[in-house]
């Protein structure tokens, strides 16, 4: 059974308008950040969520841990719709669902020692005495590779390197021993020479704590190394989903083909075989009719301009939303 199931999720954000505009112009317009997405995340897997900026991947991640409430649809976790949970129950839910934010520098308080930043997670959950919390935080520091913990506990974020800060962010997420962690671009800000080290740490933590990850990344090369399955998003929709080998070796959707073809390969002999899709991702306020990719699609047919393709399984575990299949 799926650990987390998203059912027909929609997330619309109202477009901010000035006071005068809101008086005289009729209806509010919406940014359709997520427009009808259904996803299942299995226990113990790492599901990758990839796509260009503006495709809605971060919003999807936030919805999965109830940092946002969907406009429509349900997120089912442990048999319950987490959109309906409130108050104390919600606080208890937060122990099991965690999120690491994109930029480790701006997600740590510059005036708070990193040990306290980790221990505070327990405080907000009203767990343990101060001494117990400190002991637990030191244990976590060791676990994320900041050892010896005593020498790191009192340091401030600016005294750490980018990679170390990212470790603190992981530590803060795992101190509650969650079941599910959403990591938003965890290695986008670090140098390539230590990227692999952080990815390995993530996988070690996963094994130790029996975690399930939703790995959000625009970097498909990195995603290929860590994810079991991968979902490709475009303009608020999941347009392709499959086992990582299926998606990378046999991409079906023309957008996925273009996206994978555009990744710079660190090999001067490799030459691009696929043409790069022209143009840029359109505005999610007024997405194109029919298939949202049709204005940029090299294989666009008449049907694509009017009919929205259904997201369906074309091979075991490999689904795509495209009229070609």
């Amino acid at each position, binding site marked *: 059974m799926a650990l987390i199931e998203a059912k027909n999720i929609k997330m619309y954000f109202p477009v901010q308008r000035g006071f005068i505009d809101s008086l005289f112009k009729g209806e509010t317009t919406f940014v359709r950040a997520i427009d009808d997405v259904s996803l299942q995340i299995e226990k113990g897997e790492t599901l990758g969520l990839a796509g*260009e*900026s503006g495709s809605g991947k971060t919003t999807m991640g936030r919805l999965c841990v109830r940092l946002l409430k969907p406009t429509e649809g349900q997120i089912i976790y442990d048999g319950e719709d987490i959109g309906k949970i409130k108050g104390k129950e919600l606080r208890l839910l937060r122990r099991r669902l965690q999120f690491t934010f994109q930029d480790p520098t701006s997600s740590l308080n510059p005036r708070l020692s990193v040990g306290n930043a980790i221990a505070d997670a327990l405080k907000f959950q009203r767990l343990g005495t101060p001494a117990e919390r400190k002991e637990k935080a030191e244990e976590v520091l060791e676990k994320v590779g900041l050892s010896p913990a005593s020498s790191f506990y009192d340091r401030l974020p600016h005294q750490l*390197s980018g*990679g170390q800060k990212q470790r603190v962010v992981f530590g803060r997420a795992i101190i509650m021993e969650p079941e599910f962690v959403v990591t938003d671009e965890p290695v986008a800000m670090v*140098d*390539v*020479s*230590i*990227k*692999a*080290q952080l*990815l*390995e740490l993530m996988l070690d933590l996963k094994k130790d704590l029996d975690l399930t990850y939703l790995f959000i990344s*625009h*970097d*498909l*090369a*990195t995603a*290929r*190394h860590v994810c079991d399955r991968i979902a490709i998003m475009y303009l608020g929709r999941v347009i392709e989903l499959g086992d*990582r*080998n299926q998606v*990378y070796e046999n991409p079906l959707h023309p957008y996925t083909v*273009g*996206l*994978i*073809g*555009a*990744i*710079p*390969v*660190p*090999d*001067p*002999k*490799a030459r*691009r075989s696929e043409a*790069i*899709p*022209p143009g*840029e*991702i359109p505005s999610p306020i007024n997405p194109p009719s029919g298939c949202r990719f049709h204005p940029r699609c090299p294989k666009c047919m008449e049907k694509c301009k009017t009919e929205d393709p259904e997201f369906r399984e074309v091979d075991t575990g490999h689904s795509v939303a495209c009229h070609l299949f």
Partner: protein
Amino acid sequence: MTNALRIQDLTVEYKTRRGVARAVDRVQLSLEENRTLGLAGESGCGKSTLGRAIMRLVPHPGQVAGGNIYINIDDDIPCKKGDIPKGEVDITGLNEEQMRVLRGKEIAYIFQDPMTSLNPMLTIGNHFIQMIQAHNPEIEKEEALDRGKEVLEGLGILPERVTDYPHQFSGGMRQRVMIGLGMVLRPRLLISDEPTTSLDVIVEAQILEQMAELKKTFNLTMILITHNLGVLAQTADDIAIMYCGRIVELASTENLFEAPQHPYAQALLLSVPDVTKPNKKLVWIPGAPPDLVDPIPGCMFNPRCPMAMDICKTQVPPLIESETGGLVACHLYGGK
């Protein structure tokens, strides 16, 4: 082949409160015309500082502490404060006015961040007019605008958009405008600093393709500063790998990827994820670069190097010719 650029013993230092940090340390480099040199390395290795030093635009509190930068000039260039003779010119000896004349016309620089490098109060067309008239005041506005439109078209921007302001463009489009401004005066040498780093892969691929196209039309010599080795594999002719302000290896792109010589270059290449090789075991380099204010003796890479020997801890390895025809600074190859 003539050299478009020749750098000798260039040292750039930042005077900080904690002491002097040597961001570029006795760099030797020469670049033939019409080639693209990739300058790669981790953050803080001095690649941007080196690029800016070539423009003589090292930000305060940095300054060129020694060395020479020679560029080649085809014709005598008139200047109010002393004409610049043709041939090889050492730009470290020029005055500010002479540099102003050279910047944009002979050497152009595309800055990292297109959001903050364009003037929000000026239309894109005005950016081009200002750029062109600053160097050629005799050119009329209309003609300047036409030249701008021509370059923008090559970069995939509709000519009628010159009347738009920067905020009306997407990030990728703004970056294209920056590239267009860098190229419109047809400089001999174009330095671009992480031109596609903040962009999505599809837009990145589009821009790199257009840049390569324009480089051919305009006969440019290019320096591409980036930490993304995948991008360099696809665009550069030669690659220089920097570590702690020094060039540790310089080789043709093929040779560097085929047979990297320096242990740092080897490790760096093994750490790059490759989408075509899912089973590649990614490695990392243990430790972190040393503090530049308090540098270590010998080879700067020795504490992280798996092959470190005793000599590495005391002596700086010179940049010598490598077996693959490039240059390498490592004691492993000093025996010849």
